[in-house]
């Protein structure tokens, strides 16, 4: 490494070192460093559906920061931007199984889908009932059966929170699956990048942007977006994103909104974007009944933001408000 301006000890040790830090910082977590699995310290609760998610590292706090009461039972980080592997996830699945089956929360990427699929096949051999929900909320990607489909991005946080609450209430697997699918169906995301990001192994930005250039429709892996555009005031950027969401699934009524930073954007700017989102919603007769403003689904040190909306109903609002106690989301306890 030497010259890469990242707080790391080496490319190979990024994930293990992160797990060491996570374990030391959060007594509510138990970390299996060998297998790279983050569990609730309390262990599985008999009769509760287990929730497991996983994906490449580099999106922190997703997923490891969402392990705890009212959310995930285990998270499996892969290498940076690389989905985890089946042996890891079968281990996690077996460990959190409390007799009521396990839900896998999978972001829609070929790698994640294939590795979770193999895990599910192996789980079936062990007689664990496993269901999977696929998160695919990113409207920047046109949905088609001829492509890999939409990416899973910010809505993952909503699915993990709401399905986690549902599982905590003791609901059976098919109910947890239903609510997870419903959250996904009601959620949409759109992201705008002001810079690329630097993966530890590459050591320089994945793509270059000029001083006034931005990328519209970015994902969460430092990849360029659908189109390149020019920098504009926060209001215009927020409206571009909101228009994309509204066009895909009209916004109305109580809405759960996340203004998410990509990792390198300061909180002050995210609040400015959120103020514009609130204006936009008001214009459409909707309102931000619940919200998150901060870094929740990041792309290493990328500068920019994404907006995720979810149309709420009474049940979803209640499940959103349900107590949660994880490193990154905590209320009611």
């Amino acid at each position: 490494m030497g010259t890469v301006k990242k707080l790391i000890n080496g490319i190979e040790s990024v994930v293990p070192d992160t797990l060491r830090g996570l374990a030391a910082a959060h007594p509510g977590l138990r970390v299996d460093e060998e297998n790279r699995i983050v569990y609730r310290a309390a262990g599985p609760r008999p009769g509760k559906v287990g929730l497991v998610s996983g994906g490449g590292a580099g999106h922190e706090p997703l997923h490891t920061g969402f392990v705890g009461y009212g959310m995930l039972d285990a998270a499996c980080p892969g290498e940076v931007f690389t989905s985890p592997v089946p042996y890891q996830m079968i281990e996690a699945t077996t460990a959190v199984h409390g007799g009521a089956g396990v839900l896998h929360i999978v972001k829609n990427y070929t790698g994640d889908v294939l590795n979770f699929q193999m895990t599910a096949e192996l789980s079936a051999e062990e007689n664990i009932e496993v269901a999977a929900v696929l998160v695919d909320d990113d409207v920047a990607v046109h949905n088609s059966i001829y492509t890999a489909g939409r990416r899973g991005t910010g809505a993952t946080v909503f699915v993990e929170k709401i399905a986690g609450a549902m599982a905590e209430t003791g609901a059976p697997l098919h109910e947890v699956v239903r609510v997870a699918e419903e959250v996904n169906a009601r959620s949409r995301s759109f992201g705008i990048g002001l810079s690329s990001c630097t993966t530890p192994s590459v050591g320089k930005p994945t793509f270059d942007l000029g001083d006034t250039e931005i990328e519209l429709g970015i994902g969460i892996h430092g990849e360029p977006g659908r189109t390149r555009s020019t920098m504009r005031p926060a209001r215009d950027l927020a409206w571009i994103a909101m228009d994309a969401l509204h066009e895909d699934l009209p916004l109305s009524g109580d809405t759960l909104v996340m203004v998410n930073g990509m990792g390198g954007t300061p909180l002050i700017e995210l609040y400015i974007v959120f103020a514009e989102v609130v204006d936009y919603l008001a214009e459409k007769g909707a309102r931000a009944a619940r919200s998150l403003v901060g870094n929740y689904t990041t792309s290493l040190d990328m500068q920019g933001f994404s907006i995720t909306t979810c149309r709420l109903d009474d049940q979803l609002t209640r499940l959103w408000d349900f107590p949660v106690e994880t490193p990154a989301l905590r209320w009611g306890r």
Partner: protein
Amino acid sequence: MNTACFAAWIEEIARTVHAEKDRLTRLDAAIGDADHGANLDRGFTAVSRVLAAKQPETTGAMLTMVGSTLIRNVGGASGPLYGMAFRQMGRVLGDTPDVSIAQLCTALEAGLAGIQKLGAATEGDKTLVDALAPAIQALAQSVQDGVKPEEAISAAAAAALAGAEATIPMLAHKGRASYLGPRSVGHEDPGAASTALIFAALHAVTTR
């Protein structure tokens, strides 16, 4: 090809993947997430380690080990896809002591079928299938034409390389590059490039 020959092939893949790691990652940076080189290097380094510890006794077991080790260590899209391909090849070869080009071709066809079953990509989708399929076709043609093994493998390696290059003008329909839509055009697919490396490695060890 006996187990020693397969072992040499695998070692040569590990060596060239390591040498070409940065190029593969650069290709992936352009239209993916900049990890393909790191992914495969991690996978084949693990394969080398397993091979050094204990060489499997049959050709089938050897390729199955390669596939399982890749699945265990790579992750991402390429881990399961290449992993499945090697496992399918291993299943087909079983304990065949000396694998002919025709048998290799049959095994590769099973590997390709495994990849397509998992990933649903067809030729023209701008994936590793675009290098693998023409390489197998070239090999099959060579078998039919009865050419010498070295020539058959040389033709397959050339076809894989041409197939990888042919992905440049393609619009991606599968994998991360598909998210870019029209912006995926003009870049070589990293998986197709690594498939070309795998055939080049086979060519290198058979002409030693």
